[in-house]
C-alpha cells in the first residue's frame, strides 16, 4: 500500500539545539496512530513540522505524495489551540472564521459533531471547561475532509466522560482512508482504538509498532510502552 505520510531523514534544530534528530516514519492510509513520548520529547514539534508550521528542517516530508508545505497544509487538519481567539468569542463565530479560512470546512458536519459533543453554539470560550474546549477543538478538526488529522494531546487534563466522547468521535468521524496521528503521554486509556503506536525518545523515533502485534506477544500496549523507559532506569 502507498504511504500516506513519508518522512525521510528529518532533522530539526531551534536556536542551535537539536529537537528532532534523523526521523524516518511512514504511515499508511486509514490508520489511527498514537504518537507517544514524555513531555518535551518533541511530539508537538514533529506535528508542527508535518503541518508545515515549523520550517527550516532538513530532510523530506511527503503527504499524499506532496512535499511542498502549501500542498501539505491543504491535505491535513491540525488541532487548533484556539489561542488566537479572544476569550469572549462564541463558538458560532469561531465556526464562521473556519468557514472562511478553510474551503473544505463542512458546516453541516460541524453541526452534527457539535450536537454529538453537546456543545452550545452560543457559548463563549471563557465559559468553557477544559473538556468542552477539547471537544470543540476535535469537532473543528473533523469538520474538514483531509488525508491526515494531527491531534495534539486532546486527552490531557480532561475527565473520563469527555475522553470517552472524544474517543468515540475519532472512531465514528474518521473518514475511511484518512489517517489520524494523536499525541499523548499515556496510552492505557486509548489503546483499544489504536492501530499503531509511534514512540519518540531521545529526539528520534524509538519504536513504531502495531498494537495487535504487541498483544500477540501476550503483552499489553501499556506494558510495552512503559518497558521502554524501565529498561533505561536499570
Amino acid at each position, binding site marked *: 500500500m502507498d504511504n500516506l505520510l513519508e518522512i525521510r531523514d528529518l532533522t530539526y534544530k531551534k536556536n542551535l539545539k537539536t529537537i528532532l534528530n534523523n526521523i524516518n516514519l511512514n504511515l499508511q492510509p486509514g490508520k489511527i496512530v498514537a504518537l507517544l513520548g514524555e513531555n518535551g520529547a518533541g511530539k508537538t514539534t514533529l506535528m508542527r513540522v508535518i503541518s508545515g508550521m515549523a520550517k527550516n528542517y532538513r530532510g523530506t516530508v511527503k503527504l499524499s505524495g506532496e512535499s511542498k508545505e502549501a500542498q501539505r497544509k491543504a491535505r491535513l487538519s491540525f488541532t487548533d489551540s484556539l489561542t488566537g481567539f479572544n476569550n469572549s468569542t462564541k463558538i458560532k463565530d469561531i465556526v464562521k472564521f473556519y468557514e472562511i479560512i478553510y474551503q473544505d470546512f463542512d458546516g453541516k458536519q460541524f453541526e452534527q459533531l457539535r450536537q454529538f459533543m453537546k456543545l452550545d453554539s452560543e457559548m463563549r470560550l471563557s465559559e468553557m471547561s477544559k473538556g468542552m474546549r477539547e471537544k470543540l477543538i476535535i469537532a473543528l478538526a473533523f469538520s474538514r475532509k483531509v488525508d491526515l488529522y494531527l491531534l495534539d494531546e486532546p486527552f490531557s487534563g480532561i475527565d473520563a466522560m469527555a475522553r470517552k466522547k472524544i474517543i468515540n468521535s475519532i472512531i465514528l468521524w474518521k473518514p475511511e482512508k484518512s489517517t489520524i496521528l494523536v499525541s499523548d503521554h499515556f496510552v492505557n486509556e486509548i489503546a483499544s482504538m489504536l492501530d499503531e503506536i509511534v514512540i519518540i525518545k531521545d529526539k528520534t523515533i524509538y519504536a513504531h509498532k502495531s498494537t495487535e502485534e504487541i498483544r*500477540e506477544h501476550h503483552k499489553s500496549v501499556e506494558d510495552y510502552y512503559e518497558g521502554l523507559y524501565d529498561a533505561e532506569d536499570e
Partner: protein
Amino acid sequence: MNFKDSLPIYIQIKEYLCRQIITGKLEPNQMIPSVRNLAKQLTVNVNTIQKALRQMINSGLLVTKRGEGNYVTSDKKLLEKIKRDMIVAEQRKFVQNMKSIGITPKQTHLILANHLK
C-alpha cells in the same frame, strides 16, 4: 465490553460474537450490527472490527449479503461444530488452570463431580 490488554482485540471480538451466536443472542440468519455500530459499541477502531469479521466470514460463521450487511450462518452443523470447539477450549482452559495450581486431572475430576452434585 472490557478487553484484556494482552490479547489481540480482534480475537476477543471474535470470541465475543461467537458467544453471542452460541448463546442465541444472535440467531441464525440474523443480521449483526454494522461495522460502525460495533466500533462505537465496543470503542475499538473500524480496522480491528473488520479483521474480526473477515475471519468469521472466512470460517463461514458469518455470511455477507452485498449491500446489506453480515448475517449469522444458518448452517446448523457449522454452529454445532463451533459450539463443540468452544466446549473443548473451555475444558482445556479449566484443566490447565487446575494443573497450574497443582491439581491433577484425577483430582480435578473428583472436585468437579463433587461441585456439580
